[in-house]
């Protein structure tokens, strides 16, 4: 069996937020939605201060509260561990978002085309002549496909008004044998992804060779994301450099 997991090495993370943009371009997420989010924290008082970074994708929990509360089974966990949202089934009740202790869910408050960086007029004639009117112009066709044994619409293409979305562990890439976009792009290789059940994957090796911890272990969610180095976040940290995050 395949059991996918991700490791985040905080000793390597530069807080560059490249993973956030990689995810956005790959998954065509709209403005203000960060399936991958990188906290930048500051703690202490001058001159004894500390700055730390913390990337936060969906934790793809084994005991996922978001799955439990979904009234229609739109949020489900696959056998390989991916926690996905079926965009064709979701009724937009937003229970999963409230149930998730990590704040990783993003609801589509409006038509995604309208939320796609509306500052830019993607309907510009000379652009449409190249893109055929797609919004965004870099629209990824993989996202419209059905994936997995279940053949459900689970990749980012679910972007539709009134429907929930979140990090998919890049199901459409993983199924093609590629690494998730954020992992693939990380300049310092702070993100690792792979099969836990295969002892030879970098992922398994990573877990063997490092001491790991998990986000909000106390919530009992049993995440599939393992952190290496650093320390769990606390309320003594203040978030600095928050992105503009409007809906």
């Amino acid at each position, binding site marked *: 069996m395949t059991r996918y997991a991700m490791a985040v090495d905080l*000793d390597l993370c530069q807080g560059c937020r490249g993973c956030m943009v990689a995810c956005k371009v790959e998954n065509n997420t709209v403005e203000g939605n960060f399936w991958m989010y990188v906290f930048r924290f500051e703690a202490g008082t001058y001159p004894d201060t500390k700055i730390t970074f913390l990337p936060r994708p969906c934790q793809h929990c084994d005991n996922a509260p978001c799955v439990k509360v979904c009234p229609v089974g739109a949020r489900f966990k696959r056998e390989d561990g991916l926690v996905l949202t079926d965009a064709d089934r979701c009724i937009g009740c937003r229970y999963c978002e409230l149930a998730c202790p990590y704040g990783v869910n993003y609801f589509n408050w409006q038509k995604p085309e309208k939320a796609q960086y509306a500052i830019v007029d993607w309907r510009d004639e000379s652009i449409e002549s190249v893109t055929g009117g797609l919004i965004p112009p870099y629209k990824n*066709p993989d996202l419209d496909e*059905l994936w997995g044994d279940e053949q459900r619409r689970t990749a980012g293409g679910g972007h539709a008004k009134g429907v929930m979305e979140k990090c998919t562990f890049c199901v459409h890439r993983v199924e093609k044998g590629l690494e998730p976009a954020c992992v693939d792009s990380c300049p310092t290789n702070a993100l690792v992804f792979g099969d836990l059940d295969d002892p030879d994957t970098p992922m398994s090796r990573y877990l063997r060779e490092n001491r790991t911890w998990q986000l909000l272990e106390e919530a009992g969610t049993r995440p599939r994301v393992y952190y290496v180095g650093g320390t769990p976040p606390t309320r003594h940290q203040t978030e600095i450099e928050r992105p503009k995050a409007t809906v």
Partner: protein
Amino acid sequence: MPETFLGMPEITRRGFVKGSAVAAGTAVVASTFLFKTLDGVAVAESVAAQGAVEDFIATTCWIGKQDCGMIARRIDGRVVKFEGNPTNPRNVGTLCPKGHAQIQAVYDPNRVKWPLIRTNEKGVTGEWRRASWDEALDLVAEKVNEVRARNPKLVLWQKGRSKAKDFYDDAFVKSIGATKIGHGAFCSDAGYRALEYTLGPHAVLHPDFRYCDYMLSWGWNITGAGGNKFCWLTWPRHMVKARERGMKITHLDPRLRSAGPFADTWLPIRPGTDLAMAMALCRELIAHGYLDRPYLTTYTNAPMLVKSDGMILKTTVGEGEEAEEIGLVWDEASGAAVPFGDAESPALEGEFEVEGEKVKPGFQLFIEHVDAYTPEFAAEITGLTADQIRRVADEFGSHAKIGATIVVDGVEVPYRPVGIMAYHMTQQDLGFQTARAITMVPMLVGAVGAAGGQMVDFTWKIHKNYAKFEKIKVEDPPYDFQLKNSKYFPINTGHPGIVAQTMIDPDRWGVEEIPEVAILHMVNPLASFPSRPEYLKSYMKFKFVVDINPWLSETADYFADVVLPAATIEKYEGPTSATDQYIDAVTMRIPPMEPMFESRGEIDIYMDLTERMGVLYGEGGYLSIVNKELKLTGTEFELPLDQKPEVRHIFDQWAKGQGIEEGVAYFEDPNHGVYIKGPMKPAEIYGYVTEVPFGGVIHRLYGESLLDAQRQMIEKGAEKIYWQDYTAFPTWRPQTMDSSPSEYEFVLLSYHQIEHKQTRTSFIPMLAELAPGAPLDMNPASAARLGLREGDTVTVESHNAITGETRRLTTSLTLIESIRPDTVAMPHHFGMWTHPQNEGQGPSANEIYFTGEGYTSSTADQTFHVKVKVTKGGDA
């Protein structure tokens, strides 16, 4: 499908009449309206099944300065994503946020779509009419030729932060005989001058991360910018690997944010005081005997005997053509002064008498010079504690392993695993001398050019300036408009701000001719460079300005007569080194798609322009210079001089000339994209083991010719403010800004952000989302004292200590603990207005920085510091 209220497909009249089955259809309409696609209703198809063609092409990042290798994924010729090219040593398959986000820039409808010709007066926001390429190019060629006919040097070709290899713009400049200026001291050229002077290569400091154990991150924006040579990604990759090995980092910076979590120790140094810090470190290293005497005596002028007038005691060796002046050193073995290089044991300390004249080795003078820089003295200046300074010196000295060697690729190399990363330390009042001072720290322990130690360039190639600086010329007016060899800036870093000033008031500077035409290429002075008022005045004096730019730059908005739309990534550009310092490789930018709109690559534009100007063909023409620059001259791949080639063909010839059979196709192939030449050899990297060690030059610890230049400047009547820093050793003096009234209590500095590149990204929506604008960072303690709170609108007023002028900007306040309480900081990158996305992004520190006396110093250095006061309120 057009949509109406409720998002229902519009029911056309015909459709309505025909569709009597509206009721039946309601279910269908409702299902698309409210369900979008219910289970099973929509059957998605795979890319292939959708009938789309997917392919990949290699290219390089267009935003950053290190041209990371990228693979573009295309669907039916439309680029949908850029990913890192795994074979490129610089980025190894990874990308930074800008690398990804540039896809939005490519498709930005706010690019300049077609040539524009100005229809209103200059000095205000431009009004434009669309022109054909023919009309625009003809107009530019005519205007430029008019001036060229009189004096081609009065055609100013100006470029900012360069990218790729500049063969094609050099060919343009040379073929039309124009004057070329770059960003100069607005980036770090003062630092380049300092190292050309001190060590020889055209370089700035960076450590050998492969072996380094202890690094001073000296104003290195580790997590935010690039440092030297690279844009961002490569150094940090090396750094995290070095840290995994156990390398320790001490971070000297008024802000901790730049080092993020990577500083093992943070020393929040007061801005602009780095020279004093470096001299104190030198003093402590000497005091504790952390000295590499063999290095100092063999490769530096430290043992050379200096007379009481400050000049080195020299003798002539060789005869006739071969004759060469060489300094004398005191040989302890023979007890006599002998030519440098001939001594068995050259003295570094002491006082000697040679031919009745009292002389001291340069190093003795250095000891005496740095003696005043006690840790206590430096602590006072730098705002650090004496203990902190001692500790750094001790750590640096003890980690240096003086005397050790290591075998690298079979070659034994001196091993000094201590190094410094310092690039923008030249962006301060004492910039040039600060860069020299910081270089002296690793020099003392022999770490320069050692394994694990102080690297400079990627190779130890000696720049022609090294020899030039042996004798610095100070001439009488008239000067050229850059003030080269002038009594003001005898070593001239190249400073667009000076051009602006000489244009405004040529008489004051003894300048007779000022440029008449400007061709702007990848530069936006009005937004990127300090002191906007100078540009506003000087650019009005140009008779004709053309901007070659994918966007309407602020400079073009006010001053361009013609704007020619350049392509972004959709063009051929290169070749570019792809080395990461350890692997040698070359790559180039390939258009991943047709240029958007009517934009064109610069090479196309320059070929068309030179053709119209009559300098494309023939010997000395554009093509012949391209041949030379690409080393095609005399080879079978030489471009014929009588016909205009396709740009792709030029690169094809170049690639074939490199021995790559497939030609440019090799670089287009997503499996390649990069031509790897192999590992860099120790003899290329380490100065100690190059063919002739250190390229055969003597490192200048003692700056004799600087002192000489000072005397000439005084003699020519230059004011003290110009000559004061031309000293043989870096010498601390209070900064100009320190004499601003005490109410201007903060130093304002600016920094680069990882999400943005200079002024060319703030309008890319995904980046603007991550780093939305330019707040003022302040320590909460200072804010509390001033009664200011997070998010407050504040007015920042700067003061020019020389002229008394004040300037103001308004922005919002951000509180951060990790900054000195006497320092405030703003991110660079903003303050623009031509793009709709610029709305609300806030101002640029450049609006209130100063150039000119006191702020442009020494070698035409530019400080990015100014004293400011911060008050609540203001109109944002």
